[in-house]
């Protein structure tokens, strides 16, 4: 923000913000601002690790109602102050970082479940609710959102909406955008709008979809109605080891083409099976690629689905059956992969080269990325798994990891190395028909590739932004859209 914190204008703005939310909910202390300067993006983590200052907001504001959000947006527009919505702050793409300072709109006071409709099977909630709490609220009624991502414990539902998040049961229940009925949004200029109440209609283009994945650049999503589901009678898993990743991929794709409808599927390449899956499960999986899948619903139907799936795995592709226990290992430990000790951590340099493609392209995307990382960055290790499967293709959760002693101690050099990996690997993926990305979003990290990705369609995205946000204050500099200085 161009207004200095020791100026009287800073106090004038603070007074206006305080008038909206109350004194307790406008933070200007160093400790509070520090808390909003680091998310889960490696660059700010590394910057902090090297003892360097990360950009901080001038004000952290905690609204409790949609009307308060609208009033804050009007103040921000009047003074042209950048506004960055913040949920759990656990994004890996730098999407919620206040790179131009200004106001961070911490949404976590907007954490109410407004209604669980047992007739329509929907839940309406404010978007600052931590998704685990939303899920627990539904569970108490015997229901579930079925949105169960690894970050369920730390991310708000608004965060998932903002970057099109995906849970582990995506293969059956879809990504977050498949679960949304409707949204309430505060536009950048402070108007409160609601999208149509149902997602299937023929009443023109779908505004709900326009706001989903907009990462706070087109407005603040303040309320959502989501589809919910009864808890299934049974959910069963089975796992196999295949001789190599290619055979496992063919088996997985065949299962998807069979339309048997698994609720989840994961395939780990040989390296990740050996180094990661083995460690998390505490068992020796020395050779081959681990594939796990499951079905849920009425038990008799699940058993029948499983029987047909086993025929594909065993008769067509000769997978080594690890049994239901081998599948349960994954389900029981699915979040363990993300705890320190199992997840990568600074001083290592690491990144998830999250890409999605159809079955005709996904293997080529994998090999292209692997080749470029192995060739250009011999100090880095490349591992990958395929974690969200759809009728037409799947998501590649590829990762590169530099050991800590191979990462330059100098922050600028470390950032340059890190960005170089992304430049080469992501561009290789795009060339092979991959789309960045499936569920982490674009944020700051991938903004520079959006023009490559959208091509001649980019002016449409830019035009939308300019029309909705004439002062360019909503999360500037993200998603490849303009900054504000």
């Amino acid at each position, binding site marked *: 923000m161009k207004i200095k914190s020791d100026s009287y204008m800073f106090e004038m703005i603070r007074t206006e913000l305080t008038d909206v939310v109350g004194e307790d909910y406008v*933070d200007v*202390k*160093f*400790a*509070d601002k*520090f*808390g*909003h300067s*680091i998310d*889960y993006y490696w660059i700010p*983590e590394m910057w*902090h*690790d*090297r*003892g*360097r*200052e990360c950009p901080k907001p001038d004000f952290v504001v*905690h609204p409790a109602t949609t009307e308060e959000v609208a009033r804050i947006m009007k103040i921000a527009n009047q003074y042209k102050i950048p506004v960055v919505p913040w949920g*759990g*702050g*656990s994004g890996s793409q730098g999407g919620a970082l206040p790179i131009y300072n200004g106001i961070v709109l*911490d949404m*976590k*006071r907007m*954490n109410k479940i407004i209604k669980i409709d047992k007739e329509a099977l929907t839940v309406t909630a404010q978007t*600052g609710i*931590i998704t*685990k*709490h939303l899920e*627990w*609220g539904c*569970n*108490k009624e015997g229901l579930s959102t079925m949105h169960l991502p690894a*970050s*369920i*414990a*730390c991310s708000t539902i608004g965060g998932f909406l903002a970057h099109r998040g995906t849970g582990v049961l995506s293969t059956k229940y879809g990504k977050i955008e498949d679960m949304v009925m409707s949204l309430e949004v505060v536009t950048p200029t402070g108007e409160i709008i609601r999208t149509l109440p149902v997602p299937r209609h023929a009443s023109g283009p779908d505004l709900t979809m326009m706001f989903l994945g907009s990462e706070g650049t087109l407005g603040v999503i303040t309320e959502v109605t989501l589809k919910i589901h009864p808890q299934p009678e049974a959910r069963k898993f089975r796992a196999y080891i295949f001789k190599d990743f290619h055979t496992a991929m063919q088996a997985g794709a065949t299962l998807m083409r069979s339309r048997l409808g698994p609720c989840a599927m994961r395939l780990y390449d040989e390296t990740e099976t050996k180094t990661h899956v083995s460690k998390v499960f505490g068992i020796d999986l020395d050779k081959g690629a681990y594939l796990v899948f499951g079905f849920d619903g009425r038990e008799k139907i699940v058993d029948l689905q499983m029987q047909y799936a086993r025929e594909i795995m065993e008769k067509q592709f000769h997978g080594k059956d690890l049994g239901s226990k081998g599948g349960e290992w994954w389900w029981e430990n699915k*979040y*363990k992969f*993300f*705890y*320190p*000790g*199992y*997840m990568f*951590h*600074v001083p290592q340099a690491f990144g998830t080269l999250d890409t999605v493609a159809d079955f005709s392209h996904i293997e080529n995307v994998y090999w292209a990325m692997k080749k470029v990382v192995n060739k250009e960055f011999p100090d880095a290790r490349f591992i990958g798994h395929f974690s969200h499967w759809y009728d037409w293709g799947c998501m590649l959760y590829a990762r590169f990891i530099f050991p800590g002693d191979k990462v330059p101690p100098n922050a600028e050099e470390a950032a340059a190395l890190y960005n170089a990996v992304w430049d080469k690997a992501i561009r290789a993926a795009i060339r092979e028909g991959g789309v960045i990305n499936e569920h982490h979003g674009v944020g700051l990290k991938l903004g520079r590739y959006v023009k490559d990705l959208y091509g001649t369609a980019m002016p449409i995205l830019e035009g939308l932004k300019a029309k909705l946000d004439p002062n360019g204050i909503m999360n500037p500099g993200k998603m490849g859209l303009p900054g504000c200085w």
Partner: protein
Amino acid sequence: MHIDKYEEAMMNCRFCFMCRHLSTIGQVRCTEVDTPRIRAAMLYGLKTGTNSFDDSDFVDALYRQELSACCTHHCVNHYDENGLAIAARADVVEAGKAPEAVKKLAAKFAKSVGWSASGKGDVAYFLDETTASDKQVVAAAKKLFAAAKVTPKTITGGTIGKVLKVLGYLPEAKAAAEKFAAFLKAEGVKTLVVSNPAAFDALTKDYPEFGVKLPCKVFCFSGFLNQAKVKFTKKAGGLYYLADDFMRNYDGCGCPEKLLKTLKADLRPFGTNDEESYCCGEGAIVLDKLNPALVKALAEYVAARADDPKKDKIVVLSAYTKKCLKKYGKLNVVTMEELAASCL
């Protein structure tokens, strides 16, 4: 620095979000600064020079922590973020940067070290100040001792060290522990029963850490009743059980749960989950004195999760929790002693 002993927790928690949903204070204040991640990141900043104890907001955040340990309990690696926070408080105190309110409280408690005993025999009941202030709990305990055919010696007095440790005054806490152990020895105590889970935690965890040996066996009140084979004639019936942080998240002894079975309690799940602390700052011992507004918010958070706040019967383990939940949450709360006495 004391925090160096907890470097593993600091280095791993500083970029980890996996217990965000359990961050009790972060949840009621809706802040990032009150989460294990940011506390650890700020402490790491001491090493690189980006943060310092000169920042009173940072120090305040350290003293705002409820120390429920539910993050440690939940974490697959069980990193001791509470241990890190207490170590940081000790560093704050050594640096002379403790907030005035903390200094005053610590001075008051340090002065209180000293006890007296009434009665005879080698079985003693330690009645800490918080429990002693709740007449119903005291009466229930008396009734239960009678049912167990035990006439204990009653020990009353000041802190046995826990509060001083939690506030970051480690040498004073150790001194209090040594003094209490010597007092018990002088009194010939062979069996010590305590009501307050914080006192039980101090005696069974802190004292060994300080290298202080006790001359006696220590029982929590439930543990005492379990082994005393008291005959209960009435069923406890339907109720909600909220274990204090110390028994729930600090490697609990399992005695209250065993007693609830004996009492034929029909336990109902409180709230929406069994991961959250649902605490009022028991772990921080004196959070109600340091930050009553925060304790009020914690109690209201718990009360908002009750199925029927007016009718639900809730059993807790400490007089502290009972006091907070009744005062701010308007809940129908009894301690384990009261529940057990009502079943005689």
